[in-house]
């Protein structure tokens, strides 16, 4: 046994070992038509040649195992073809290659076979992944393998995982003491599947208990309760996180509007289209990187941040200079004019980029997530967007409160004639402030491109939400927008979990209407004198 382990360890590192030939007769059934034969072939292969099997099985899981006539081959990068039995390159590549397609059932067997082989890898990370994988799919047949792995494993974290798997596999043991130990170990788990395994132990089937031993039954009950506590905790945490994530998205969508509408009082119906400009900049940067810097494609998003800000700000400044500045103090005309601009911008996007949505891919560092608990996974893209919205918020607060421009903006909105009298160039400040609001909307668009569809009409879906956030928070209040966005996000998500998405949407809208009727000034009313009022 020790020898085998040593062999495995060395083999997985060295290629020379993988060149040892496999009996082609073992490989051929992998390409059989029915899954039963294939699964039997996988097991036979692992049994007969554990060290050579791994590259072959890995190729099979990755859709790169193929048959050419009677020979089973592995498809390598760049159209190279290797013989699966000897691992020698075949030149020229044989004709009539047909990939062996696999279905989920075979894929599941492959995954557990590979995980079992990888438990003996020399690399800690590989073993850790394998231990996780093994936990997903345990049965009693794996006990000898788990025993072997446990004997070899030194890392405490991996050991804990393996022990959980071991306990799951030994639940079916005939020895009550073994079962008791297993049930007690499983109480440490926070995997909902384990609870499912334990539940039958506390139930009666007809008149007899499924589990004969009363001590095991009691221990199972205790274990289930402690698992359930952890599950409920993770559930609520998960819900709070999705709420936070929706809140951060609402906030990003609404922050720009909090300046243009909230602070400057311009009812900007083209706000959604400014988001769209930002989102399309992300797409444009992606295309530029794809064409010119394919090596750095993963970082296109960083370049998209300034580009999105500047292009949306530019559109905003043009809007303000050409149209809006002639309409200050005439809200109805502003509303109609900006609505017109919104239609115009949508049509421009449709003409330039086509009416269909464009594809914006998540960079690889935003894919996947951190698994805090087996039933709580926080996706990276959401985490990054929450962080990004906080960063934008801080930057905006700093600009408004610490910079000279921010001081001018506040002065102009509070008392325009007086600000003008002391030498503030009010016209220019208006333009810059509007540009800033538009630019921040552009940043929101860049973030939205990572989770939503990017198309000419995308802004329409956010305009209502954005106004909702700003009005609910109280016009003229940054803090109000923040609380409103978070509140709406968390409230919607808890409601959705309970009523479903369709009803939640209706309920939220109704509640907002009621709220605005009772408290038209929003959550936070601005105290003081507006010069207009």
């Amino acid at each position, binding site marked *: 046994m020790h020898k085998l382990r040593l062999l495995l360890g060395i083999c997985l590192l060295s290629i020379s070992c993988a060149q040892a030939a496999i009996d082609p007769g073992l490989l051929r059934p992998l390409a059989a038509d029915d899954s039963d034969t294939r699964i039997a072939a996988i097991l036979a292969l692992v049994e007969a040649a554990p060290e050579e099997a791994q590259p072959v099985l890995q190729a099979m899981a990755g859709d790169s195992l193929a048959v050419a006539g009677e020979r089973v081959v592995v498809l390598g990068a760049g159209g190279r073809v290797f013989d699966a039995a000897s691992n020698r390159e075949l030149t020229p590549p044989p004709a009539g290659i047909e990939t062996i397609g696999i*279905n989920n059932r075979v894929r599941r067997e492959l995954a557990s076979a590979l995980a079992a082989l990888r438990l003996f890898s020399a690399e800690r990370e590989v073993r850790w992944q394998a231990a996780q994988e093994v936990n997903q799919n345990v049965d009693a047949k794996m006990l000898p393998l788990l025993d072997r792995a446990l004997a070899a494993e030194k890392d405490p974290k991996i050991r804990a995982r393996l022990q959980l798997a071991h306990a799951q596999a030994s639940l079916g043991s005939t020895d009550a003491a073994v079962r008791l130990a297993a049930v007690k170990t499983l109480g440490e788990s926070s995997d909902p599947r384990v609870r499912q395994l334990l539940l039958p132990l506390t139930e009666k089937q007809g008149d007899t208990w499924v589990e004969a031993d009363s001590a095991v039954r009691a221990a199972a009950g205790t274990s289930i309760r402690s698992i359930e506590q952890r599950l409920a905790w993770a*559930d609520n945490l998960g819900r709070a996180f999705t709420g936070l994530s929706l809140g951060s998205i609402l906030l990003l969508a609404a922050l720009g509007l909090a300046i243009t509408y909230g602070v400057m009082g311009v009812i900007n119906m083209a706000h959604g289209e400014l988001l769209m400009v930002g989102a399309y900049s992300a797409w444009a940067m992606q295309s530029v990187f794809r064409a010119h810097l394919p090596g750095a494609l993963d970082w296109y998003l960083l370049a998209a941040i300034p580009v999105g800000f500047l292009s949306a700000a530019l559109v905003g400044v043009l809007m303000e200079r050409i149209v809006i500045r002639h309409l200050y103090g005439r809200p109805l005309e502003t509303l109609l004019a900006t609505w017109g601009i919104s239609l115009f911008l949508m049509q421009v996007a449709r003409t330039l980029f086509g*009416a269909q949505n464009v594809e914006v891919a998540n960079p690889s560092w935003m894919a996947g997530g951190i698994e805090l608990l087996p*039933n709580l996974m926080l996706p990276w*893209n959401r985490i990054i967007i929450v962080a990004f919205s906080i960063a934008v918020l801080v930057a905006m607060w700093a600009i408004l409160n610490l910079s000279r421009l921010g001081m001018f903006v506040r002065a102009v909105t509070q008392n325009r004639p007086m600000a003008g009298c002391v030498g503030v160039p009010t016209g220019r400040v208006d333009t810059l402030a509007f540009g800033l609001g538009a630019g921040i909307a552009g940043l929101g668009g860049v973030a939205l491109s990572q989770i939503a*569809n990017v198309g000419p009409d995308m802004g329409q879906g956010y305009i209502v939400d954005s106004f909702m956030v700003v009005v609910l928070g109280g016009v003229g209040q940054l803090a109000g927008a923040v609380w409103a966005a978070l509140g709406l996000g968390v409230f919607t998500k808890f409601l959705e979990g309970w009523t479903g998405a369709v009803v939640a949407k209706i309920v939220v809208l109704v509640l907002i209407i009621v709220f605005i009727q009772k408290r038209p000034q929003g959550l936070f009313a601005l105290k003081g004198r507006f010069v207009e009022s």
Partner: protein
Amino acid sequence: MVRRNFMKTISAVAVTAAFGLNSFAALAAETIKVGVLHSLSGTMAISETALKETVLMAIDEINSKGGVLGRKLEPVVVDPASNWPLFAEKARQLLSKDKVAVVFGCWTSVSRKSVLPVFKELNGLLFYPVQYEGEELEYNVFYTGAAPNQQAIPAVEYLMSKDGGEAKRFVLLGTDYVYPRTTNKILRAFLKSKGVADADIMEEYTPFGHSDYQTIIAKIKKFSSEGKKTAVVSTINGDSNVPFYKELGNAGIKATDVPVVAFSVGEEELRGVDTKPLVGHLASWNYFMSLKNPQNEKFTKAYRAWAVKQKLPNADKAVTNDPMEATYIGINMWKQAVEKAKSTDVDKVIAAMAGQSFKAPSGFTIKMDERNHHLHKPVFIGEIKADGQFNVVWRTPGPVRAQPWSPFIPGNEQRKDQPEGR
């Protein structure tokens, strides 16, 4: 003076009008107008734009071979913009103003339902190329997509089979409108007949264009961890699929644990998604681009060449899918029927459609049923591969006859398997 001038103008106008009309009539005699009624903007554009391109490609193909009855086809393309009432308006415009001989169009059932009264009133002819919920049989419509027994039922049967993972619990997830609601009603009745309890079925709907699937994914995770093997049946339509699959990938729901089978997701919809985390999730269709046969090779090549010629976005990666194939079958069968009837008259063409057959890209010779206006189609179930294509894991031995009136909905036994004629 004024009066004379007026008379002059009038006669000038009359003369021009007469000439205009004449030349118009001459032109009309030369071409046959074909209406294309697909959303080119809005939430459904992701799916429907490719169908418009397919119609145009097929028309181009037919014209290059001499047209129909010696006359060229002339496409009239309109954009109903994913706006259901606008579909009816545009259909009326096509039929009464443009006088088209036939219309190829619609994707969602709600758009089809909205144009139906117009087609009935003006006795138009509609070819509907998308899988749908059944429960409808109209004289003026030919359904070239799948009925539930040609897509949904086989898919669920597969999920319950050993190779499909022996699912015992089901999440029925859809967009909130008539197709998903009816399909799920049929599936619920079907599952009940197979002994699945109500507690083991979860039904969830989202609005059109929904983009935040966090809660739903969390719910699916929870539901699937509460015991027996779970599978998800998705009837989500339009561009919501992109955020749904993105979230699914990020949440780490693997097809080996909880497989998702989709009825409205094909090669085209997956173009906007990173498919690596989605490997193994399923779709059920009557055609996949990855099928290997001479007809399909010709079809995919022709479409890619068309996409490059039209400079469509991402033309080098252009894909074909099931509704495109259904559109292609539809227009070719219509051509055959017109040639058989020797007229484009709607009633004559409808009569000539019965029993038409066509060697389709699916590799089978597809027949239009003699009675029920539906095609006999083969069913394929495919798993998503890392390159966005499908690997066929299950197929019917041959074409299956459509049952527009599902036997799983009570009261359908008395329904006639033939539309009421005019």
